[in-house]
């Protein structure tokens, strides 16, 4: 299977270039030869941004388990494990 490179780019709202198509730079071309405007217009990294990492792993993805503590006035009252709750709910449904 081919590797899919991860790319991240930011396109600030600078005056638009004459064509949306970017000329492909020659292989091995030194960075200094890239026009300054183009350097400003695009920021690319080969690694996932921290924003992507945080968004993906803390806000997305399947929640397999989680612990919930119900508290009142800073006093912990009930400790729940979501997976236990799921099992209990399905058992109730079966009845």
């Amino acid at each position, binding site marked *: 299977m081919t590797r899919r490179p991860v790319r991240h780019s*930011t*396109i600030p709202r600078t005056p638009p270039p004459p064509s949306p198509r970017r000329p492909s730079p020659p292989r091995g071309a030194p960075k200094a030869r890239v026009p300054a405007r183009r350097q400003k217009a695009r920021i690319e990294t080969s690694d996932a941004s921290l924003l*992507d*990492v945080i968004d993906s792993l803390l806000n*997305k*993805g399947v*929640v*397999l388990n989680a612990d919930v503590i119900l508290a009142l006035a800073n006093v912990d009252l009930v400790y729940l494990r979501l997976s236990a*709750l*799921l099992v209990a709910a399905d058992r109730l449904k079966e009845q």
Partner: protein
Amino acid sequence: MTRTLYVYAIVEPGVRLPRVAGHRIERVELGGVAAAAERRTKAPPLSEKALRDQYRVVASVHQRVNAIVPVRFGALVERDELERIASLRGRMLVAALRNVKGKSQMTVRLLGSAPARPPAMPAASGTDYLLSRAESNRPAVPPLADAIRRSVAAIVSAESIDPGRESIELTINHLVPNGRLARYRSRVEAVAFESSSPASVMISGPMPPFAFAPDLWDEA
């Protein structure tokens, strides 16, 4: 003896998982699905290093297999518990794997300032109040985001939109077939360049389809 597993992702049964430096990822068969997991006794403490490390593992698996449903950070479960969850939510997980097969997530963020939410209006009834709250929580889609969505509508197979916060005006997640990733990127870039909107556009991906994982608790 109880065996605890740290789960990175749900994958199809029988797939071959990659070797990832620093980890011993194993496939745990769970009937109609399998888990890409590692034997551990503790979940890693939350840190940037741990998050990046887990992302690297999930991305490596995503590059190797056709279908992957990533799991949220911190999923340390007992083997029995994992089997129980898989048996209760197996159909949902199989459907999710089918949905993401051969696809990757692309994310477009509009950078600017998140729009201020209008305060909920006084309501005559509880239902009216909840409806007005739901309406005020619905992300407002700026014209640039709408233009981007229209430009890729024929390419993407699913979409989810997250409301803005702080310097992010809006986040759009798209599920894109792997063969159309380059076309997707060029269309988004073209719209962004041509737009007169003051917002900047940040394109991320391709990445594992985190935003298209099912909510297992929805039916509980």
